[in-house]
């Protein structure tokens, strides 16, 4: 990877991390009145996968969508405006954290109900086939979504129709607080998916270059012969399911060791990669400083921005 490309990826990772760390700082002031599902530890998957997508690709996501939104849009001001419930947010404050979208940037929808955007993404891929266009559609979902019937219905239909849709499973091994072992009746996710007529691959979601290699490989195969692909990336959810805090001390999971944390933190891990390919500590610091200012500005602007007028309650229901 070239330095310039790597630094642009780093900038995205840092932007997401700093934005979420800022939420953690500000959240308990109770000015952001929206449930936040923070993705600290998961940033590498959205950043890595989206880095590989051709222009014009469309994405769908979940309520844990901050990384996806910021990767795809880079829109810090809009992001914070939406979290503060302000008119200048992409959903005018009607969406909040769990339903961020930016159709103009290809981020079509995210959803607070597990698994619900999966068939919608398949429908978007069906539209590409119907129109004879070759746009790529990607849907991100957690491992819990694979227990929903709609996941299997969607995978089945996408495979049946050879649709160009990329299913990306972000596996943190937890559904809120329930461990995979208490939820899965199958031995392995990839093994279960392998029975379907699609490409499939997986890896460590904390390792951005690995995510990129894996994604590029399946996208290449999809372009040679259209078929869906399924990518499985594991990661550590560093924080509680919803909210700004850690929850390693409440008893349902153990705190990772320092070594594990360093290995499973996609930002720290990518910093090592940057230094390996010749970036300097100053290069990294320059990125962090620039992003810090961007985030500070976004929060301040959002705090000072107006709410929607009462009339906005009734707009946007029907076309």
């Amino acid at each position, binding site marked *: 990877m070239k330095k310039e490309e790597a630094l642009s990826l780093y900038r995205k990772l840092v932007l997401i991390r700093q934005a979420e760390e800022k939420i953690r700082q500000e959240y308990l002031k109770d000015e952001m009145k929206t449930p936040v599902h923070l993705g600290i530890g998961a940033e590498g998957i959205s950043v890595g996968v989206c880095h590989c997508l051709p222009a014009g690709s469309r994405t769908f996501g979940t309520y844990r969508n901050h990384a996806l939104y910021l990767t795809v849009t880079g829109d810090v001001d809009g992001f914070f405006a939406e979290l503060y419930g302000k008119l200048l947010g992409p959903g005018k404050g009607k969406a909040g954290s769990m339903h961020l979208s930016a159709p103009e940037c290809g981020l079509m929808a995210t959803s607070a109900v597990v698994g619900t955007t999966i*068939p919608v993404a398949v429908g978007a891929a069906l539209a590409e086939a119907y129109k004879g266009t070759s746009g790529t559609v990607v849907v991100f979902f957690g491992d819990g979504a694979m227990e929903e019937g709609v996941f299997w219905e969607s995978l089945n239909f996408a495979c049946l129709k050879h649709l160009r849709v990329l299913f990306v499973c972000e596996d943190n091994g937890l559904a809120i607080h329930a461990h995979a072992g208490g939820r899965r009746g199958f031995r392995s996710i990839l093994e279960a998916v392998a029975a379907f007529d699609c490409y499939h691959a997986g890896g460590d979601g904390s390792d951005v270059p690995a995510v990129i290699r894996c994604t590029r490989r399946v996208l290449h195969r999809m372009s040679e012969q259209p078929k869906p692909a399924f990518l499985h990336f594991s990661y550590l959810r560093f924080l509680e399911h919803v909210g700004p805090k850690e929850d390693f001390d409440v008893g349902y999971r153990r705190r990772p060791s320092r070594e594990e944390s360093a290995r499973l933190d996609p930002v720290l891990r990518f910093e090592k990669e940057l230094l390996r390919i010749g970036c300097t500590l100053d290069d990294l610091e320059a990125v962090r400083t620039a992003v810090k200012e961007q985030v500070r500005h976004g929060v301040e602007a959002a705090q000072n921005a107006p709410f929607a007028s009462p009339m906005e309650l009734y707009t946007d229901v029907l076309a």
Partner: protein
Amino acid sequence: MKSLISFREALNLALVKEMESDPSVFVFGLDVDDHKSIFGSTDGLVEKFGGERCFGTPLSEDAMTGVALGAAMSGLRPIHVHIRADFILLAMNQIGNMMSNLRYMSGGKLTIPLVVRAVIGRGWGQSAQHSKSLHGVFAHFPGLKVVLPTTPQDGYSLLRSSIRDNNPVIFLEHRWLYDIVGDVDDERVVPLGQAAVLHEGDAMTLVCSSWMNVEALKAAKVLARRGLAVEVVDVRTVSPLDEQTIVGSVKKTRNCIVADYDWIFCGFGAELAALISQRCFGCLERPVERLGFAPVPCPTTRPLENLFYPSALTIIRAVERLFGLEEADLNGEPFYSYEQRFKGPF
């Protein structure tokens, strides 16, 4: 051009016209491409437009509804068809959590032009899982439109309007209507959100949905013989609702029976009765009466099924009761039954 055609032919004609004029319109759903073609309504679409524009699906109502939504968000105009409305309950997540909300949550950026067609109502022992209407359930969600055509003309015109609408539309067709024949003018446009007066009268307004219009028209004929002129108002679309036509009729007749093709409790009939009671309070000679399904699951056996569904006879008896009239002797009066099919003309 005007022609005398059946409700099924009217729906088919609407599909053909829209598919001819707009390549983004396509029809999909379980059984749309088989030899029975959803009571004949999708007949010939595969031959005319190809398997890409009319295709069957796996048994996956939930995902297929999401697929319709995703296609609609991508600039297409999907028509997703269910052979029974009951099966849509498997897809309520996509309807109630996604398609009704996404425009709002995107700040108005997403447009969702899609139609969900479904067959409702009584057949021959269809029982509890093949007979529901559910229009009140759908209409409860802001962000959806709900259409219940009764005449062949409305089947034709309202389906075309639904396909052209830029919102999700639930389009519910009573299975006994398919055989009904009526004049259809293929140029006639009927916008969503307009009720129709099917029969004029000044003694009592019958506000009806779907099949209840057929029953109400029969009741109107019988009641006319003893000098009672009842007005039959077909709501045609549940959401958006044409309050003006309904309220106008009740203000004229000062009496109202709501005959909804659904359960009464917490149903669309309750909405109509509340609307009329509020808007016509000073004009009403008596409280609004409500007719609908018996408050039980639909039974299979005919004697109980006959008690479950409201009918022309139920309406006649209700009118007599409200006006304090003696029950007319209706022995020998021919009423609609599955075996004695009413084929129109409407």
